[in-house]
Each structure stands twice: as structure tokens, then as C-alpha cells.
């Protein structure tokens, strides 16, 4: 009678979460579709003029990606909570923060990465200049993991409630506004021909910090909201 190793537990968790997402791969596409749809709504709402769309392109794409990954965050612990798996995770002998880091990684890989991959298409819809596209992709690559990590803390805080839904958005919002300002700001600067290195560096620094601290904070928040 001996418990398994922590790495075995993490591997089991990764394998299970990926298997679950594969089983519901239709659902996994949802954030992607949502972002596409939000972006596609704007031309209808604003009219088809290219100059207007071009001006708002980077910002709108950023907002759409952000909303899509926030809305999908809600499911991060939801189903585990509903069927009692989360209790089992908390009761397991392994460090909870590590297990949660695995879950966050799976979330980023399966929602944010496809969003980044589809960003070029979105930028075509809104006539984003080709020169700005690399900057957009770079900022998204830095900003989305930051969103997943920060979001996870907030989801953990609201995990005790059923249907936290949009309250989550409210809690996350103040935390991610800086990410939005720096991310979209870098793109807008690039579009206007201004230097855009500084905001990217800031994002990188925050990301490093969040990678270390967010899983610990998430574990603490989860323990608070479960007992």
C-alpha cells in the first residue's frame, strides 16, 4: 500500500484532462468560434468601411480573445467541482498547486493556442495591416498565458458558488486591464509606427512572475472556497 509519485499523478491528470477534451472536442472549439464571431459582428455593427475597421482591428481582436478565454475559464474547475473530482484532487497526497498548474497548462494549450493560431484570419476580417500582425501575435503569446494564470486564481475563488458565470468576469477585469492596455497598446503603437518594445518587456516580466506565483495562489484560493 503505497501512494504513487507526484509526477505520476501529474501525468495521470494531464492524460485525463486531454482525454476529456478529446471526448468533447466539439466543445473545445467553442472559444475559437466565439472569438471569430465577436470579431465578425463588428463590421456588421460599424459598417464595412475599411479605414474604421483598420483603426480598431488590434484592439477588437484583443478584446475578443480576452473574452473568449475568460468565458472558457469558467469551465476550468466547474465540471471537476460538479462531479466531486475536485474533492479528490484536494484530498490527494500531492501538492495541489502542481496539480492545478497542470490543469492551467491544459487550459492554455487547448483554448489560447488555437486562438493565437486563428488571429491572422481575424486580422484579415478587420483589415489589420500585415506589418502589425507579428506584433499582435507576439503580444497575444505573452498575454494569453497571463490571462489563464490570473483567471485561474479568480476561478478558484468563485469555485464554491454554482454558476459564478459573469461575476468571474467582474473579478478578473481589474486584474487584466493592465494586460489589455499593454498588449493592445503595443499593437496600436506598432500600427502608428511608434516603438513598442517596452510594453512587451513588461508583459514578459509579469508572465514570469505569474508562472511562479499563480499556481500557489490558485491552490490557496481553492482551499478557501472549498471548505
Amino acid at each position, binding site marked *: *500500500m*503505497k*501512494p*504513487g509519485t507526484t509526477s*505520476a*499523478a501529474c*501525468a*495521470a*491528470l494531464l*492524460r*485525463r484532462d486531454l*482525454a*476529456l477534451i478529446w*471526448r*468533447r472536442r466539439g466543445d473545445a472549439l467553442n472559444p475559437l468560434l466565439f472569438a471569430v464571431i465577436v470579431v465578425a459582428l463588428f463590421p456588421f455593427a460599424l459598417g464595412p468601411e475599411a479605414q474604421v475597421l483598420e483603426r480598431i482591428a488590434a484592439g477588437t481582436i484583443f478584446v475578443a480573445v480576452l473574452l473568449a478565454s475568460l468565458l472558457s475559464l469558467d469551465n476550468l474547475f466547474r*465540471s471537476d467541482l*460538479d*462531479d*466531486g*473530482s475536485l*474533492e*479528490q*484532487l*484536494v*484530498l*490527494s*497526497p*500531492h501538492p495541489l498547486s502542481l496539480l492545478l498548474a497542470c490543469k492551467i497548462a491544459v487550459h492554455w494549450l487547448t483554448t489560447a493556442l488555437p486562438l493565437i493560431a486563428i488571429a491572422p484570419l481575424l486580422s484579415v476580417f478587420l483589415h489589420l495591416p500585415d506589418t502589425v500582425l507579428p506584433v499582435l501575435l507576439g503580444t497575444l503569446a505573452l498575454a494569453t498565458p497571463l490571462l489563464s494564470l490570473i483567471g485561474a486564481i479568480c476561478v478558484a475563488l468563485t469555485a464554491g458558488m454554482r454558476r459564478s458565470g459573469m461575476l468571474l468576469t467582474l473579478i478578473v477585469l481589474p486584474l487584466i486591464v493592465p494586460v489589455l492596455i499593454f498588449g493592445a497598446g503595443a499593437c496600436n503603437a506598432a500600427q502608428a509606427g511608434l516603438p513598442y518594445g517596452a510594453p512587451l518587456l513588461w508583459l514578459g516580466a509579469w508572465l514570469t512572475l505569474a508562472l511562479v506565483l499563480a499556481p500557489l495562489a490558485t491552490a490557496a484560493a481553492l*482551499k478557501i472556497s*472549498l*471548505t
Partner: protein
Amino acid sequence: MPAIDLVDTPPLLAAHCLAYARNEEPIFGPLDFSLAAGEVVLIEGDNGSGKTTLLKVLSGLLEPTSGEVLLNGVHLTLAKLSHQVALLGHLAGIKMELSTLQNLRFAVGLGGIRPGITPPLALASVGLAGYEDQPVRLLSAGQKKRVALARLLLVPAALWLLDEPYANLDREGIELVNRLLTTHAQRGGAALITSHGAYAYTSGTPRKIALNPGTGNRESAIGPKSTPTKDASA
């Protein structure tokens, strides 16, 4: 990691003055009891008497309002509990989308495995041979319960906390639970089970803890009783 072969250590689980209140309303009153290795104890009580709540407290999911719980003579904390307690509640932590085998594999990855058993063996011994690749969602109520029972077989936990393990099971399933309990007790494990007295655990020394319904049972009757209750269908 401590070894858990503790057949001769005095009480596996001991509770002193354990009480739980929700919003100042007592759910179950100060309870004193102990559970030795090799023992299976039945928690009896009417609907709403706090059986489920007691199990949640003992598994560390709820914090007791007062009193303390000792596991092998040491204070019970969440971290210590982890691999010595297996809880089977109304929610079994089973993924409806995954197959029975995938679920058990994950449970083993997370909690470790008893020597001499594998997930497919465990499935077979709860009567689900042939359902290895079936998503749990497609099983009937009793079959789901059996998957949860298979998990108990795999995970190396000395103390089982089972909330209404007999509900939804057919007669064969009830015998299965009794068989599992007997084996577990013989191996030096212990179990606390709730039930409405309909299907008592029949072998060994069935002891009962009674919870008085609703009153916050401040002077609850605890102690060994020997009559298993079979007269339920009156």
C-alpha cells in the same frame, strides 16, 4: 511517506466531542467514538440527522465546529488524511465522459495502487467485466455505483467512509458491498458506513453509531449494539 500497515495500533480513528453546526444550528452533537482497525461501523439516523455531514467532517472536507479527530493517534489534518481515507459520497469524482477503465486509471495515478490488483481486475470484481470501454455516462444508476466501489478496491486507503453504499444496488450488489467490507476489515482496514438500517453489514462485529434526527443530538447514544436490523420493510 509512512507505511500504513497498522493492524495492531490501537484506534485507527478516534473522535472526541466532535460536533458540527451550520450557521450556529447544531447538525450533529458532541460525538465520542473510536474505530479500531478491522472494524466496520454503521452510522444510523433518520433523514436529516447529519450522517452525510459527519462523513464530510471526518474526511476533512468540512471543518468541525468543535472537538477533534485523531487518526492513528495523531491529529487529523487535511494533508495527513489524504491517502488514508477514501470517501464514497453521493458524488464519486467519476467523469461521465470517460470510460470506466480510464476513470480507474486516473484514480490510481492520483492516489496510488494497492499491490496485487489492477484496474481491469477491480472492474471484474465489481461485476463490470465487459464494460471497460463504456463511458460511465451510459451506465445505469447501480452500475455507476459499482465503478465507485471499484475505486475503493484500488486505492490504498485504510479508512473507508461510505455514504449510503447500498442505495441503488441490487441484491447482488449489496452482497458485493458486504464482501468488500469483510475483506477490507480482514486486511486491517476499517470502514464507517451510513445506512438507513435496511441492509446492515452482517458479518464481523457490526457496531452502530446512532444520530438523533435534527435535535443536534447532544446526548447521542453511542456504543456497540449487536442486532442488525432486517425488519425494515414493515
